[in-house]
């Protein structure tokens, strides 16, 4: 029973997070309070949303390196829209950001689908292009807090039942993604395309189109995150979230999503992101130099890959009857 439980990646990850929190609690008991957890969750919300999108893409054996650049561009456009038309209702601004994110994702998806260019090359290219576009759009100028309308900045911070909207939004996205992944043909197609693209064709699944939709999804979520990021930190400029794409992928890897496609779950992506979030938030609290954070997350990634690879390792065929009994 125990062995079977330990085989489950998600449970293993929960155990690891609990152990980590316990370790932190030894040095800083105040970390283990509902308020503190709520804060860590809120702080990790954007990473969670992004990891969900990346998960869909990785499941189909692709990768999206352009998510952070997409976030920055969509966020910048949202901010520009807000400064140009302060009266525009915020939900509309969010919709525009998501639509733009989706469009950028569609560009990735189309290049992967229609031209068969390897995903890593496509998104490596669009990563620089999207970020460059922000510069062209703004001449590199920042949009600062005072230029944004109060409503624009207030939304993610607004408390609903004592929890900020930002957290609510990420919970909503988790629920939606869970529904998409488990209860819709598209969600199941993600698994099929990544698990066995050759077989997926025979099942009547269009591999390219499924990948395209995965990119649309990751793009839309990046667009949403773009607004959230910009409004939360109340600033938009070319370099926001630079290098964050690797954090997103790291969250997925830690969450047990196989880079080879076909394996992974919503719970895994969320837990992987939370694991990174706990580390990020705990280090300053327990007085470990923030400079150690990078080395720690690197080590965690390597351990996570090793553990997951062990779980995935195919055993040879059991042919001897007596061996089978064991």
């Amino acid at each position, binding site marked *: 029973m125990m062995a079977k439980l330990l085989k489950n990646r998600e449970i293993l990850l929960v155990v690891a997070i609990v152990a980590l929190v316990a370790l932190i609690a030894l040095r800083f008991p105040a970390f283990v309070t509902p308020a503190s957890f709520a804060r860590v969750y809120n702080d990790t919300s954007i990473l969670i949303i992004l990891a969900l999108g990346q998960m869909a893409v990785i499941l189909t054996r692709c990768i999206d390196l352009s998510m952070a650049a997409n976030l920055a561009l969509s966020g910048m456009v949202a901010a520009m829209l807000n400064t140009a038309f302060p009266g525009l209702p915020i939900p509309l601004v969010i919709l525009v950001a998501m639509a733009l994110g989706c469009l950028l994702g569609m560009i990735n998806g189309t290049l992967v689908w229609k031209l068969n260019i*390897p995903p890593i090359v496509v998104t490596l290219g669009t990563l620089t292009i999207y970020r460059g576009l922000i510069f062209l759009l703004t001449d590199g100028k920042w949009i600062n807090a005072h230029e944004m309308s109060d409503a624009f900045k207030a939304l993610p911070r607004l408390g609903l039942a004592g929890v900020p909207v930002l957290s609510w939004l990420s919970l909503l996205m988790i629920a939606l993604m869970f529904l998409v992944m488990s209860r819709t043909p598209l969600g199941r197609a993600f698994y099929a395309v990544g698990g066995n693209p050759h077989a997926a064709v025979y099942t009547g699944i269009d591999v390219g189109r499924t990948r395209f939709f995965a990119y649309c999804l990751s793009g839309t979520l990046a667009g949403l995150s773009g607004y959230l990021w910009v409004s939360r930190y109340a600033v938009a400029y070319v370099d926001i979230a630079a*290098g964050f794409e690797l954090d997103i992928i790291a969250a997925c890897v830690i969450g047990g999503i196989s*880079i080879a496609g076909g394996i992974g779950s919503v719970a895994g992506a969320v837990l992987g992101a939370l694991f990174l979030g706990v580390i990020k938030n705990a280090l300053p609290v327990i007085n470990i130099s923030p*400079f150690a954070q990078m080395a720690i997350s*690197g080590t965690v990634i390597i351990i996570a890959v090793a553990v997951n690879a062990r779980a995935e390792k195919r055993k040879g065929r059991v042919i001897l009857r007596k061996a089978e009994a064991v």
Partner: protein
Amino acid sequence: MTDAHLSPRNIPDRLQGRGARILKSWESLLLVVAIAIFLGNSLASPYFLDPWNLSDATFNFTEKAMIAFAMALVIISGEIDLSVASIIALASTAMGYAVQLGVDTPALVAIGLGVGLICGMVNGLLITGLGLPSIVVTIGTMSLFRGLSFIVLGDQAFTGYPESFAWFGQGYFWWVFSFEFTLFVLLAVIYGVLLHKTNFGRAVYAIGNNQTAALFSGVRVARVKFILFLLTGLMAGLASICLTSRLGSTRPSIALGWELEVVTMVVLGGVNILGGSGTIPGVVLAALIMGMVTFGFGLLNVPGIVMSIFIGLLLISVIALPILWQRARRRLAH
């Protein structure tokens, strides 16, 4: 699939002559692009065609290109190493630390190369020893190696490198030919021979095309891959020496983001990111193109990020255009 009609027992070695093969190759496309950019630059700025300026411009790509050569082999073998920039940081940190202890130049070089090798070994062991996917392992070691630099240095910097150490990044071999550029040419030749003229290079291609079949054919897959990661580590160490010498100081943020630029250079050079094909001349041309684009745009005071858009577009379009072209031709033929 209809090969039955072909006459048996008289199979020619090659169907096309050497000239036709070269003309049709990716490298000739790149060469045309490179020449176009060279001409464009000469027209756009009066400062471009100046030996010293061109010499200065080589510093834009030489260090990255050194790593790109080794990276090309890694990618041809079907793997990837995203930790190279972090190896530069760690090697530079180690050298900086040694300087504080009063170590002299030859020992510094040894330390730089040694740390590079050790980092490559760590990657190699994790990937070939434990059989983990290289893209994830090196994302992990990328954070780990640079993280170690941050732990050592934090907000500090190491400076005070000996005068003689400056030669690697700032010295000239002969006239306008800097040490770095000379090294770049030398390494291009060495890697070209290694990949295209040796059994080892053939093994790299075989592994990239079909790892299992290569193993069954007696290729020592794990050993070859291990050596490849050692080589990228070593090259990152070498690049670290050059860059550190050029900057004269070490910060943990040194060479941040270079891994993607190196991969871009390799892919632009025609190396298939999925492994199995690619050439060193292609990578050399890609390095020159990227260097010239950076420099040309710099002369016009165009911000670096605009040139990165150009590189990004170039990366996608050089792959997409031939595909689109072929499709268009097929449609016309119908």
